[in-house]
């Protein structure tokens, strides 16, 4: 089985394709990561209000979202300072299960993704 040519092709193509991406990719990934976690927190909080999920599930999901947001906030402090205050607001809104605030933050983050936002 000739695996070598496939591996060589893959290794050659990686840096060429990586070079083709623009410099904001890292920031975009962070914004997208924050946006989806905030949106997930909003969805869970909404499901809790409507009695669709158990308290245990909602609490654990809330904690997971907080952990993700704290990790993103730490990364943002180093790489994307303009994202930092938004993630802080998101952490507060997640703690209080403020659905309206979470949805507003998710929409703000979606707008920040700009023309590189979600495929429609």
């Amino acid at each position, binding site marked *: 089985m000739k695996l070598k040519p496939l591996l060589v092709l893959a290794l050659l193509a990686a840096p060429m394709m990586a070079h083709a991406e623009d410099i904001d990719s890292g920031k975009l990934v962070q914004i997208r990561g924050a946006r989806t976690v905030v949106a997930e927190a909003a969805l869970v909080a909404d499901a809790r209000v409507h009695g669709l*999920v158990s308290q245990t599930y909602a609490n654990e999901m809330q904690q997971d979202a907080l952990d993700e947001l704290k990790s993103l906030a730490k990364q943002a402090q180093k790489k994307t300072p303009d994202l930092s205050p938004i993630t802080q607001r998101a952490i507060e809104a997640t703690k209080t299960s403020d659905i309206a605030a979470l949805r507003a933050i*998710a929409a703000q983050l979606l707008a920040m993704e700009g023309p590189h936002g979600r495929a429609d």
Partner: protein
Amino acid sequence: MGGLIEITLGIMTAVGGFVDVSELVFAAQAGSRFVFSLIWVFAISTVAIAVFGEMSGRVAAITKQPVFNLMRQRLDLGPGIVALIASVVTSIITCSAEIGGTAMALKYLTGLPYSLLAGLTTLALVGIIWALPFKWIERLFGLLGLLMIVFAIATVKIHPDWGGVARGFIPQAPVSLPLKDLVTYGYFVVAIMSAVLFPYETYFYSSGGVEEQWKPKDLMVNRMVAIVGFGLGSLLAIAVLINAAVLFRPEHVDPAIIGTSALEAAIPIGKTGLLLALLGMVFAFSGAAVETGLSSAYSLAQFLGWEWGRYKKPHEAPRFTIAWIAAFALAFAILLTGIKPLDLVEWAVVLSIVVLPATYLPLILIANDRKYMNQHVNGPVSNTLGWVFYVMICLAAAAALPLYFVTQGGKL
């Protein structure tokens, strides 16, 4: 009558065991990011796993040899060792991801700490493999994994655009997308193919054929299980994708937390839906953990010519027994490092697709060889499909690593 029961149980087991943590994650993300436009990848990959699964079961029934034995015979020593190492590493990483996914689902059910649940899950799985005969290990998880049908019930309840769903089955490349999204779409194509065609599935399926001492009379059961069982199982993965497109996309959710997928059942059905979804995830993921843990030991034992098989008592196959217990211990140790199950899923999927060409080439060659198979060699349909899918797998394997790095694991 006995044959019909055997076929039904086999099909049900295949359906319940089809969706694992990687399929759940990628199906949900594919739906929320690209609506229905990746359904065709699930459909084509399912035909491919049915073709290769049927082939590996047939080879096991006729030659009494599983896939890794054949790899050792057909590959040179160098590529053979590379394939062995890669498959064992991939299986252990996947096993780790499945145990992590099971522990996460249990955490959402009980509220107990994740690390404790991961440890208990590992111990329970080792205990179950030790105590139960092979057939019942397979059936226990496969049949309880049928709880995942709640995702399909949810799909019916949310009334998706069925015309759009049907159009999703047509192979397509959304060229109107911006380049970055198009590249990410390409990553998802490769990742879904890999998640459906995980090499451990073939190792486990063919080793299972030898464990259960299949004979030529079992070929019909094998064919039905591979075609109908995998086909229906794939519909569950497609249901997860459709639900994500309808429920998550409008909310700007691209699921980054494993538990989010359970909302697909909770939103239309309520707490019962959530409970069934989480229990289904527990059994489907832990079933996949059993398959991957055992597969790594099967690969190692078969390549090195050790005694192997769960039909033997542990002391009759001591190195095999140590190998599968060590596989679970390693999988648990990986989780203790703090790596998230979702990260493990991504690595497993990318590594797996690189291993796939080495898995399926020897299988096609043996299945075509009259010296081994007599009148049971591949027919023109399975032969043509086998080679077409093999070329697709090679192309996907070549593209997997560049796409992973460029898209940062599909996050771009």
